[in-house]
C-alpha cells in the first residue's frame, strides 16, 4: 500500500495543461501612458516574423519616446533573426534623431558586411 500511495496520487493529480493567458486589452487602459507601456510590452514579445505585426503594434503607441524604446528594444532582441530590410521597415515608425541612427544601422553598407 505504501508503494501505491504516490502512484495513485500522481495519477489522480497529473500535470495540468498550461493555459495561455490572453493578452491584456491595452486599448482599454488609462491614462494613455499606461496603455502605451502595455503596447510596448506586447511589442517586445512579438517574434521577428511577420514584421507587419511589429509595425502595427508600434503605431498604436502614441508617445513617440515609448514607441522608440519599444522599437529599439525589439530590434535588439531580434537583431540576429530579422533581415535588415525588415528592421528598416520598423525604423520608419520612429521620429527624431534616433531614427537617423536606426536607418544608418540597417541600411549602411559598412554595417551590413
Amino acid at each position, binding site marked *: 500500500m505504501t508503494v501505491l500511495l504516490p502512484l495513485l496520487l500522481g495519477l*489522480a*493529480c497529473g500535470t495540468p495543461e498550461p493555459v495561455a493567458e490572453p493578452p491584456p486589452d491595452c486599448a482599454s487602459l488609462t491614462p494613455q501612458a499606461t496603455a502605451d507601456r502595455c503596447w510596448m510590452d506586447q511589442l517586445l514579445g512579438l517574434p521577428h516574423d511577420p514584421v507587419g505585426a511589429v509595425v502595427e503594434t508600434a503605431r498604436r503607441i502614441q508617445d513617440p*519616446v515609448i514607441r522608440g524604446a519599444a522599437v529599439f*528594444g525589439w530590434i*535588439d532582441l531580434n537583431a540576429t533573426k530579422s533581415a535588415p530590410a525588415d528592421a528598416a521597415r520598423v525604423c520608419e515608425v520612429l521620429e527624431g*534623431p534616433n531614427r537617423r541612427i536606426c536607418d544608418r544601422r540597417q541600411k549602411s553598407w*559598412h554595417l551590413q558586411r
Partner: protein
Amino acid sequence: MRPPTEVLALAALSAWACQTPPEPAEAEPVPAAVSVQLPQELRRCQPYAADPPVLAYCVAGEASSVWRTPVDVVCAHAGQYADLCRQNWAAAAAKHDRTRTLDELLPACGSDQDCAFEVLDTRLYLDPLAIAARCAADVPRHEEDCIGHAVGFWVAKTPDLSGLDQVLAHGERFPGKVGYHLGTLVGCRELGACPKQGQLGDWCRRRVKGVTAAPATCQQPGGPTLVGWKR
C-alpha cells in the same frame, strides 16, 4: 464485491490531495519605481525617470540637442542605449561646433567605430586625405569604406594632384574602392591617369569606360554624403 477499505481510503485521500487548493503564495514585494533626478538639460526625459528602458531611449535622443553639455554627464543616464547616446552627441557636436577637433570629438565615441566613422566624415571638407590617413587607426573595422569616402571627397573637390601618391598607396590595399574614384578623376575631371598595371589600374579603367559610355554617372560620387562640402 466491495473494494477493500484501504483502497477506498486511498482514493479519498488522492481526491482530497488534488482538490485542495495550494496555499496562496506570498506575494513578492513589488519594488518601488526608482525615479532618477535628471540634470536640467535632460528635463524633457524626467517624465520617464521611473522606467529605465524608456528613460535610456529618451536620453539617447536628447543627446543630439544637448551637445554643449559634456558627453559623460548626458550619457550617464542612457543605460542600455549609451552607444546610441554617444553617437548622437558626437555627431551633433561635430556638426554644430566646427572648432572642435577630431581629437576632442573621437573619445566621445568610446569603442563604437561607426560613431567614429560618422565623426570623421564631418571633417572631410577640411582635408580629406588627412582623414584617409586616420582611417586605419580610428576605424579599423570600416577602414575600406572610410578610405573610400575620403578619396571620393578628394576627387569631388577637384584636387591639385599633390596628394596623388597618397591615394595610389591607399589603392594598393583597396584597389576596388580607390580605383573607382581614381577612374572618376581620370574619366570625369580629365586629371591624372590610371596606373598601367595591377588591380588598381584595372578598376580605374573599368570606371573610365563606364563614365565614357554614360557621362551622367560622373555626378554620382560613389556613395559618401559629402558633409560640409561646397563647390
